[in-house]
């Protein structure tokens, strides 16, 4: 049986569907990357997988010994965290909170677990540094260690490489790959970086309010969904302009408000700003 199965899932805000007719399954050891544009329902899907949002229709089932609690989560960083006065170790340790039960304080077991996960990500030298003084890549490493403290069967990563410099992006991908291959952790990653995703992941889910593609990465490379993306990138030379645009919109939805109205406005703005070529691409999709 699969770890996690979505059957004809529909996710909606106030009756307006954001994601519909979504069916896919994740098996133990898979590395699934969910790609799609802003407002395509990726964040909503994350909330549903974390159990923070109930599907309006269909169902999400866990199997093969997996429960909701076994999913570790790497959220997007919030602006409030940028100047947070806490040591990296305190942050990692806070991932052990769900193991405390009714105990008020962390014991030896939790502290050892936090150290083990810091070592696993070769970040033990950062333990006593202040979180706000770390670089973007180091912060992600610390948050990844925290996610591993919380659960270690499945990791759910929300835009883990957004805002990182190219070296840090590469390091992050290597780290995730290592956790997947060597430690057998199932990875679900949501990303804008389609090319990185195709290189790294074993499976791809391309979302555009409904699934455009679900299958292995190799199949995806040959599919219309991926070629549609590639073709327009080549002809429009969009990379520079659009990546700037993407950064803007990432900022816009950073507060997590993905209301239906906001989504429509964003979609309208995006279309307006896009070159004609990308409009054509959207139609192809």
């Amino acid at each position: 049986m699969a770890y996690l199965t979505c059957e004809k899932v529909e996710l909606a805000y106030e009756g307006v569907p954001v994601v519909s007719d979504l069916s896919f399954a994740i098996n133990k050891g898979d590395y699934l990357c969910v790609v799609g544009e802003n407002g395509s329902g990726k964040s909503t899907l994350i909330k549903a997988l974390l159990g923070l949002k109930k599907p309006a229709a269909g169902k999400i089932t866990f199997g093969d010994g997996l429960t909701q609690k076994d999913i570790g989560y790497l959220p997007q960083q919030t602006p409030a965290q940028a100047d947070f006065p806490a040591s990296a170790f305190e942050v990692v340790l806070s991932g052990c909170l769900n193991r405390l039960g009714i105990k008020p304080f962390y014991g030896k077991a939790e502290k050892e677990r936090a150290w083990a996960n810091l070592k696993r990500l070769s970040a033990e030298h950062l333990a006593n540094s202040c979180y706000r003084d770390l670089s973007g890549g180091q912060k992600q490493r610390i948050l990844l260690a925290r996610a591993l403290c919380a659960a270690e069967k499945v990791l759910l990563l929300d835009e883990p490489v957004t805002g990182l410099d190219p070296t840090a992006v590469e390091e992050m991908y290597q780290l995730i790959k290592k956790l997947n291959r060597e430690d057998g952790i199932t990875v679900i990653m949501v990303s804008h970086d389609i090319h990185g995703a195709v290189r790294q992941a074993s499976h791809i889910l391309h979302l555009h309010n409904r699934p455009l593609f679900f299958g292995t990465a190799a199949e995806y490379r040959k599919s219309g969904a991926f070629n549609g993306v590639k073709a327009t990138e080549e002809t429009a030379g969009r990379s520079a302009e659009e990546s700037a645009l993407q950064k803007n919109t990432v900022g816009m939805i950073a507060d997590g408000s993905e209301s239906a109205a906001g989504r429509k406005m964003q979609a309208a703005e995006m279309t307006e700003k896009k070159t004609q070529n990308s409009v054509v691409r959207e139609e192809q999709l």
Partner: protein
Amino acid sequence: MIELIQEMFSYRFMLRAITAGGLISLCAALLGVSLVLKRYSMIGDGLSHVGFGALALATVMNAAPLAVAIPVVVAAAFFLLRISGNSKIKGDAAIGLISAGSLAIGVMMISMTSGVNTDVYNYMFGSILAMSDGDVWLCVGLAAVVLFLFVWCYTRMFAVTFDETFARATGTRVGLYNGLLAALTAVTIVLGMRLMGSLLISSLIIFPALTAMRVCKRFISVILSAGVISVVCFFAGMMMSYAWGTPAGASVVVVNLAVFLVFYVIGALRER
């Protein structure tokens, strides 16, 4: 110096003000760290104005001030927390609306009945004479409750303050801890505002946290330093108020401001 302190403590009203104020300062500083880091500082400010409105209402109704103010301000705290959590409504504007609104309604109510008198002045800027024996015991009780809950929930409070989304995703009851924070803040503000004044009480919440954050690099050290800084500043402010006859609330805030500036410079020098 020592003579001054001895003289100060020889007055019963000073002893009451210092005991109650010191405990309130401690509670406000502990809660303040979480509030400031969660970007909720303005809620403290909003609540103090709601508190003014509630005290005015109590004066007009001839009711016991705390019996009216505590429930009203706790209710307002939950309301403000809700609108801050809702990104559709701009929380800061809503807080401005509520605080100015309740201040205005309070002033109107008082001016239409008893007229603007020393009561109003004391509610606005505070008075060291405001504390009765009963109030002091209330403050001791509150401080005990806040300290106990804060220590007991420390690990959870940290998780909820640092990353609400992650905490929620890993099964922490975020709503419960936010509610607890709001309720404790509301009670602290109501008890402290008669001493500090409704215009100045929010400084007890904001200043110590900001000051401690200039130099501390661990959450636990921020919490402990904020508590110590707050109590020391309060005591120094009271001495200043006693020695020079300045209003208590304003004196405490001025000392807090001075200490903040010193820590700011130390922090900036360290960074270089």
